[in-house]
């Protein structure tokens, strides 16, 4: 019987990282509806824009670390299980993406009040939509992972894989 744990945690970490990049690239940079600290420091001067950009960068750096950790775990999972389940992986990706939106939305938008999704509106329905999208993706991801039919497999060790290698 093989474990799905490495694949699930790898997919979840990659989902979190990619979710963070979607937030940073789409909402911070392309649409510019908010910056990291815009609830406290509105982008009304060049200095304020630059300061927000600095904290955006710190946020992106940690998002990058999550992504790198996810890639490392995915590599490890692929070594253990050469035939990983697409359904489990996609489910884990969605679970991670949803976890990012849920945690970031709750902590940054509601607890710390660092920014809101559409800053010019302040606390708005968009914050609720962001949080709800996270919960929805977590639910879909969990359902996908759980619905992956259990199948018995033998453990594929490195030694046996070497034997089967052409």
């Amino acid at each position, binding site marked *: *019987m*093989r*474990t*799905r*744990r*490495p694949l*699930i*945690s790898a997919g*979840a*970490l990659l989902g*979190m990282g990619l979710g963070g990049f979607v937030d940073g690239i789409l909402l911070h940079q392309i649409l510019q509806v908010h910056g*990291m*600290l815009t609830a406290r*420091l509105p982008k009304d001067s*060049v*200095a*304020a824009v*630059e*300061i927000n950009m*600095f*904290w955006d960068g*710190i*946020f992106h750096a*940690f998002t990058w*670390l*999550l992504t790198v*950790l996810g890639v490392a*775990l995915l590599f490890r999972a692929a070594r253990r299980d050469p035939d990983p*389940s697409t359904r*489990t992986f996609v489910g*884990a990706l969605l*679970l*991670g993406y949803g*976890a*990012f939106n849920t*945690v*970031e939305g709750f*902590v*940054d938008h509601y607890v*710390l009040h*660092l920014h809101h999704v559409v800053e010019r509106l302040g606390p708005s329905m968009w914050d609720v939509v962001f949080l709800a999208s996270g919960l929805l993706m977590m639910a879909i991801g969990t359902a996908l992972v759980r619905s*992956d*039919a*259990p*199948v018995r*497999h033998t453990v594929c060790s490195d030694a046996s894989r070497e034997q089967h290698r052409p």
Partner: protein
Amino acid sequence: VRAQFAFVVMVLASHGASACPLCHTETGRAVRSGIFDGRFVPTLLEVVAPFPILAAVAAFLHGAPRDRR
């Protein structure tokens, strides 16, 4: 005409704002002082606050029971 003249003068007189955390300009100094003020560490902790929670979620998933197929 006067407004147009004023606009042209403003455009020609203005120069690009050189602003970055390392720039030796007035704006650059304002950026540095805005980042590395007395609240640098608390702000850093707030900005990265979601990440330990996300890492804990991933760790939980890694160790979750009933994960075999």
